[in-house]
């Protein structure tokens, strides 16, 4: 068996009632391991685009693509796993119960991870800060892991990955 790994698909679908349920229903009905699914409208009002991340081996992943392709409401399936793409996920992390020292550290972490506004502290209270991170899924994982190590009370909200084919170069 080829090894399990995370893979990404972009999906153009009809922007209609029930299409999201049909696509997500496929994953539950066939026991495919869905990691994240994001969906939004495209430049055409009647077409939506989904970015789906799944954990699967080669054979299952092939089957997932075929099953999606077979759906009448699915217009196009793009395998993002092996092509150059840009991919970002939005992450909000609220850290509670901070003293002054803790706040300083939070700001330092934000500063170190930041690349042109991709990580910032976007809100603050008397003992609370709110991180807003727009990074890859992997980079967000790292931040979460660090925050959990450093602070006791961290609340996480993740948006799921959104990806687009790169124009000129490889970029993840």
């Amino acid at each position: 068996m080829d090894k399990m790994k995370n893979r990404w698909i972009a999906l153009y679908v009809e922007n209609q009632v029930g299409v999201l349920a049909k696509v997500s229903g496929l994953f539950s009905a066939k026991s495919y391991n869905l990691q994240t699914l994001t969906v939004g409208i495209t430049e055409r009002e009647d077409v939506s685009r989904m970015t789906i991340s799944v954990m699967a081996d080669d054979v299952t992943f092939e089957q997932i693509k075929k099953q999606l392709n077979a759906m009448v409401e699915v217009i196009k399936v793009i395998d993002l796993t092996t092509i150059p793409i840009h991919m970002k996920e939005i992450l909000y992390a609220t850290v509670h119960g901070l003293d002054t020292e803790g706040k300083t550290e939070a700001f330092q972490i934000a500063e170190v991870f930041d690349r042109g506004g991709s990580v910032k502290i976007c809100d603050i209270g008397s003992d609370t800060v709110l991180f807003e991170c727009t990074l890859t899924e992997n980079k967000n994982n790292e931040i979460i892991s660090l925050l959990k190590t450093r602070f006791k009370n961290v609340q996480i909200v993740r948006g799921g990955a959104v990806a687009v084919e790169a124009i000129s170069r490889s970029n993840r």
Partner: protein
Amino acid sequence: MALNITGRKLFVKALKEEGVDTIFAYPGGMITDIIDELYKTEGIRVILGRHEQALVHEAEGYARATGKTAVVLVTSGPGATNTITGIADAYYDSIPVVIFTGQVPLHLIGNDAFQEVDIVGMTRSITKLGVTVRNREEMGRVIKMGFQVASTGKPGPVLIDIPKDIQVTPGSPDYPDHVDIRGYHPNETVHIGQLKKAYRLLKNAKRPLILAGGGVRISGAQAELLEFATKMNIPVTTTVMGKGVMPEDSPLYIGNCGMHGRFAANKAVTECDVLFSIGTRFNDRITGDLEKFAPKAQIVHVDIASASISRNVVVDVPVTADAKIALERLVEYAEKMNTEKWVAKIAEWESEHPLTMPHSKIGVCPQVICDGINQVFPDANIITDVGQHQMWASQFIKLNKGQEFITSGGLGTMGFGFPAAVGAAVGAPDKPAVLITGDGGFQMNMQEMATVMTEKIPVVICLFNNSNLGMVRQMQQLFYGKRYEITDLSAGERGYFPDFLKWAEAYNVKGIRVTNESEVVAALKEARANEDGPTIIDFAVSPDDLVLPMVKSGTPLSDMILK
């Protein structure tokens, strides 16, 4: 510009334009307008079944017997939910059926209104397409799309849900000839390179075998299959759904393979060096233990659905194509092969363990009934329910004249047989419709007796009555120490139950009881002579008769239980 018409009028217009001459329907509150429109319509026969599940099986039988897309019309709520088993059955056996359900008016959707259910949501995983018509102007396009999707590619059921207010809203009278569906492109070509590769593999084989499934029938490629196999001298085995695609009197036809396949067929699958499979999805009933399926073979797989290829069985040469398109090409390439030794080997296996049943200790031997049907009804469409009788029929019924073997293969739906036979008889009135059923499955939809009587449908019901749920009982006998829990349908001391002849009498249906093998042919002849209505023949069968060979679920095809 043409005058606007109501949704109900457009509904009937759409049926007419689709060439629909028969629909299977049951009335209810949310389709009263459409029903009223049908009252005013000439040229569409409306068959009133007695249960919505049966309607869908009737439609399936009709579609199988005619090759046309069948139509069902039911109301919302329970009318709609009752169709679900039928829809699933049609989905797994790739049968083109369009199911129209009534729905509560748009403004009530989501309110848990009286007889409201989200039927589109409930059937999403068992339909090719399901749509609620949300405005009158899209109705024509949606219905056209439904018929297109149901009948093309790998066919299947489509559900169209029409809210009550849409049915009476005026709108465009246009019904399109064709709609473009940007996400739906059924395969209409074949990759010649792949096909040639498949052909070369087959041509160089020492022990080639063709495995033909229901896809060959769906694409209408029976003649091409026969020509190809005959030109190349390659033996053919079939799946249960493929039974009948090859005339059974052809010397190259081995029989069915799989769980209850012929010994020689399962041996051939196990020993072949190239397995050329076409129009099958390698269901677990066909393959047994996947690891040990066709262990010595390189496998070619031709199927219209790319999602069926390399799903269960990893194949060496995949060919995504309609069976007929592929076989038409292959017939052009075909050259004679020397397969004499291989064919002789298969014949040797056949004589080693021929397919035959011992005579029963009590009652009538199922094989004798099947032989009788072969003799008296050599031209009939054969319809079965699900269970032991189904497998006996798949083993002993001979289809030599291109008749249909209509059975619930994928879902294995008890209760399928009788209504499917009704549909087949309605669709193909020139061919006798012979139902082979058991007392368990028959009781699941026997209310359709009213339908056959009122519509004067001459179905011949051969009831293999052993007063038991035989297939499960067989498993209890073989694998569960004869602990016969809830498989006995008789009324204990009082014996057979119910009395099917008394019950038939209540419907004014001709009934014959056969308890002796010598009476089989005469009873069948009497049924054949009764052309104006149904006949039920109640054959007393022993509950101890077994379907053999048997491959226990999950074990290799080569491990057959033979006695």
